[in-house]
């Protein structure tokens, strides 16, 4: 019985796990050394880990963080926020704006992060209030920021590609001297811990699911559904600010037009591949995280395969269609029916033997 509940609880992780497994097997066949990780020295003379595995984990960081927030918004509101890329660009611009104000020290970087976090959470609250209070469809509500967000990001700095350079930023976006693991990976782990603590010690996760499943029932049970939806958007705003900060720190440059461009679609896709219903309700954040890594693994695989520039999107589309079909309710139904038949036959044969 316990095992069954465990299966029901985690079966939704099957699709992203299968996706990752398939990509791993495919790559191992293609190039046995694909996942080898080596220790080398970077141009600052510090030891760093290197290899495709690290590239995937590192490169997916922003997407993973955004898909964490997207999971919450999807679960609570039953819709998606399509402005996350634009909001990350705004957050990144604020981050750069504050840093350009003076000398870059650990304190100013911290201040810049708090500032961009506050701004992004305010924009998140704007989106959230449109959705929760005015009951606008999330995709329409966030379309506003999706359209004008990158222009706002431009206004903040008033220049096309402002640059900032500092060893501290390098440590934030690349490697901390002495630690061979890329910092963005560490930030993702930190975010994961924060969210799991949030779910472990508060009832937020349960409330979000309840609001997503049935808003009126949640309200009748004394849950402030407007507040919960608003909170999910504010948390997504915070995720956007972290993603924007990482994106800026990686290169010491903000290009408001290209920073995390089109990432909203990948983030939504990660939520879907993770087996979460895009209609809201029950959710598993781990699924979205695995989904995000699967998407990044796919991208890096295509780069490693040297697929021609013009064909990349087509290849990606084929794989994604396969994944989404695999995770569709119809296929799941088939799979569970076949599974039941197989297990019942086994049970019968076991019984026969016993008899």
């Amino acid at each position, binding site marked *: 019985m316990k095992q069954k509940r465990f299966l029901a609880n985690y079966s939704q992780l099957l699709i992203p796990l299968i996706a990752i497994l398939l990509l791993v097997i495919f790559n191992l066949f293609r190039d046995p050394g694909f996942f080898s990780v080596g220790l080398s020295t970077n141009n600052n003379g510090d030891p760093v880990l290197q290899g495709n595995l690290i590239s995937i984990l590192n490169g997916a960081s922003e997407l993973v963080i955004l898909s964490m927030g997207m999971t919450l918004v999807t679960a609570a509101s039953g819709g998606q926020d399509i402005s996350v890329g634009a909001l990350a660009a705004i957050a990144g611009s604020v981050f750069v704006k504050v840093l350009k104000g003076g000398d870059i020290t650990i304190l100013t970087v911290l201040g810049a992060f708090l500032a961009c976090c506050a701004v992004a959470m305010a924009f998140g609250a704007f989106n959230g209030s449109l959705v929760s209070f005015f009951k606008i469809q999330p995709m329409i509500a966030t379309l506003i920021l999706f359209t004008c967000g990158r222009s706002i990001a431009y206004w903040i700095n008033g220049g*096309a590609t402002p640059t900032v350079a500092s060893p501290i930023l390098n440590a934030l976006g690349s490697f901390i001297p002495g630690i061979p693991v890329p910092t963005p990976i560490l930030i993702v782990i930190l975010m994961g811990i924060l969210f799991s603590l949030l779910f472990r010690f508060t009832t937020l996760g349960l409330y979000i699911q309840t609001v997503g499943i049935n808003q009126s029932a949640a309200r009748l049970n004394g849950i402030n559904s407007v507040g919960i939806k608003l909170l999910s958007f504010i948390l997504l705003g915070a995720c956007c600010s972290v993603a924007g900060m990482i994106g800026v720190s990686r*290169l010491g440059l903000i290009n408001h037009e290209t920073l995390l461009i089109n990432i909203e679609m990948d983030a939504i896709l990660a939520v879907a591949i993770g087996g979460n219903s895009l209609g809201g309700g029950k959710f598993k954040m781990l699924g979205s995280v695995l989904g995000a890594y699967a998407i990044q693994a796919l991208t890096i695989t295509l780069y490693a395969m040297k697929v021609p520039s013009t064909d990349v999107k087509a290849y990606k589309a084929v794989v994604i269609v396969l994944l989404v079909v695999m995770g569709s309710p119809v296929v799941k139904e088939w799979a569970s029916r076949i599974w039941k038949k197989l297990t019942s036959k086994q049970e019968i044969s076991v019984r026969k033997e016993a008899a």
Partner: protein
Amino acid sequence: MRKLIVLLLAMVMVFGVFSVAHADDLIKVGVVNNPPSESGYREANVNDFANVFTKENGYDAKFFYSIKNDEQLAAARQFITDGVDYLLISAAETTGWDVVLKDAKDAGVRVFLFDRMINCDKDLFEAAVVSDMAEEGRTAVNWLLAQNLPEYNVIHIQGAMGSDAQLGRTGALDEQFAAGTMKKVVQQTATWDEAEAKKITEAVINSGEKFNVIYAENDGMARGAVAALDEAGITHGVGKDVVVMGFDCNKWALRELLAGNWNYDGQCSPFQAQVISEMIKVLEAGGQIEGLNELKQIISVEKGFDAREITEEDIATYGLGE
């Protein structure tokens, strides 16, 4: 208090009449352009026009910025109705302009195109001042050939597929790949995205393949590729393992050249206003515009900067942005 306001109003009216009367000797110009937020290139382009078409230079200029073709068309119509003498256009899209340009011709408004061509009859405009992206590519590739490297293993990072800049800057390099003088290690689009350029370069480094040239079709992507090199401990720049090439001449990129971290940066000149202004002055004096090619174009003079020769002065003159 009331007296003061009346006085102020009177002054405003007097000056208003004065300035209107004065505006009559100015050449009326309507500029339709893309918004400065589009790119560093556009920002410099917008500033260039604002600096050249001033009252001091004898112009009464109005500016309109939009990234949408229909809004640009409406603005162009409005400029014609307002009775401008000259219409300067950098179109968002190459099509849909025929009717407006015919209206302009009928109204006696003379049209100059800049930065981007429009698909229309050549009689509908006086001249077009544009960049030759293919020439930019050739200049860069010729520079690369002149380096006499023992071998050329090139990581080629492309811009958004199908854009003018991508097609032009890819063309010259593709010829070398086809001729076998250079080896294509990878040719991949990062769609102008710095972070993607870094991932593409990482993928090559992880595969262990040899390469000694990075040819990125803009500065941002070159910066992304260089970030990957730095993390992998591969040296780059003047006299180092990998030759780094970028385009667009942002100030920060030229400073990388000056520091010897990059090797080459190709210019894409956003400075067309002066050339157009000179042509307008010729027309106003009753002269003929000369020096156009068969497409009625004037090709902007564009340089390529070598890290060993670049100076602070070059950065101040040709660099875009801050």
